[in-house]
């Protein structure tokens, strides 16, 4: 959810400065490689050309309608609001608890509910899968799936976010398939 706002904001700023965001079609069967991870994005989607080598942003209908975001972050920089200090030996369950807390702490006045949480393997690592839901002030419900794990001092998250109305179901299977191709390098 927060990332969506950031993306929206980024778009607005880009629009204000008369620049055009550079979206390119995902090439068939071509892994997107960044510093530290790679992933095979769904074919037919658009990928935002991003100078930042720690993240990947993709969408098919525009980031307000559905987004697929992969982020690699230092663990020590991942829980700034809750001010939790974690080390590389953290249990996957605890990592999920801290992730949820940070997410909720950053959601302002929006009431975020956790629909489900479970263990998940992410690039062969012990990880988690959490489903968040929330409603905006117009009553539109959004859903967000987050896969997460850590590898040494890095936190990896793969997020799919979309309005429940039509768009969430439309592309969720592609997201789920794509997460299976994620590899920490």
């Amino acid at each position, binding site marked *: 959810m927060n990332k969506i706002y950031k993306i929206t904001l980024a778009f*607005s700023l880009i629009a204000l400065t008369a620049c055009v965001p550079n979206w390119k079609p995902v090439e068939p069967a071509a892994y997107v490689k960044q510093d530290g991870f790679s992933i095979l994005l769904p074919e037919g989607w658009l990928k935002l050309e991003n100078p930042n080598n720690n993240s990947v942003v993709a969408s098919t209908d525009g980031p307000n309608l559905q987004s697929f975001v992969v982020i690699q972050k230092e663990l020590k920089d991942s829980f700034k609001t809750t001010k*939790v200090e974690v080390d590389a030996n953290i249990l996957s369950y605890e990592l999920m608890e801290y992730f949820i807390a940070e997410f909720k*702490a950053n959601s302002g006045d929006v009431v975020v509910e956790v629909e489900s949480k479970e263990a998940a393997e992410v690039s062969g690592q012990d990880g988690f899968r959490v489903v968040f839901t929330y409603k905006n002030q117009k009553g539109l419900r959004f859903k967000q799936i987050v896969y997460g794990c850590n590898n040494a001092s890095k936190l990896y998250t793969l997020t799919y976010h979309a309005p429940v109305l039509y768009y969430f179901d439309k592309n969720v299977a592609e997201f789920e398939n794509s997460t299976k191709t994620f590899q920490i390098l």
Partner: protein
Amino acid sequence: MNAPFQSWAKLITCTFIFLYALLAGCTSNVTSYTAGSLIEPESDGENRLWSLSEKFDEGLVKSDSLYQDEELEAYLKSIIDKLFPEFEGSMQVRILKAPVLNAMALPNGSIYVNSGLLAVIENEAQLATILAHEGEHFVQKHGAKRREYVIQAAGWGMVSGVLLAGAGIPAELATLGAISSISGYSREAEAEADNLGYLRLKRAGYDVYEAPKVFRYMIREVEAEEIKQPYFFASHPKLERRVENFENLNKEAETAVKQERGEKQYLDKLSSLRKIALKSKLERGQYKALIALLTAEGAEESYGETGAFLLGEAYRLRGKEGDQELARASLLAAQEAGLNSAEMYKSIGLNEYKSGNNNEAMSAFSRYLDVADKADRERSFISMYMEKLKREQDE
């Protein structure tokens, strides 16, 4: 990850405060409500504020941000009507699902109290302190008086509109929320609401010695979380000053006989909500605030076994040196007090697993799997940790 609403509201409110400071010499033409006044907007400007307030109200309902409990709302209404008998029915009190210690009054008479604040206060007199304060913001039309300053500030609307459009938040709604909170009005308005609210508390027969405690709880939370006092306190009475103010009012009031505190009825009505709100503080990572609250005098009695469990969880998750032992003691206390939930066994198991006490971890995890709902997907974590423990034992 930053909270977009909070960041923008903060930015805008800071701008607002700056512009407000420039216009501090201006006088207001807005007149407060008095007994017998028609409770309605009296100018186009006020009309606009009422309309915004109604949109704000609707947004909170649509976003499921409110605790919908008719009995509880009737209880809150009975208190506000007792405090403001001449305005009976003009104000509506609702509970926001928000763990931060806050309350706010909108210009249309909607008053919101955060569940987090209801979780830490201990009796009806303290709740009445908050409602009297917020009710005075409405009666004195502090929102409309403040708006007068804003509309005189050239460029304000343009600046806020452009910035907030990027965040997808209507500028006026964000500003309305930020300036209507418990310390979002001007220094003078906050002081006036404190002082007039105090008189109402006294007239309604509440124990006025409970009033400063509300602000002490806020100080405790601010200190525990090691945060600076919220940004708007920079230009408003500091929390310490407000405690002092109430204590001075108590000295002047010569109220030797302590009056109604209403502890029992408050706890009877709010006990369930208080537990939910404490849990939401845990889920938002407010471990330090929770520990400060649940280790305070009287907390054990006030929050019972749920308090002991949440204290154990807060220690486990805070993760400082010695916290595993403190978590163990609190979780065992919850168990001895009769708590027998899946959550508690999971917590005991995780704490022991982290501590390297594998037998104890296995035992607690087994109990968790016995008690937990078979459809609960969290079982996957516990099953995985049990398998790892078994493998370690086999090796």
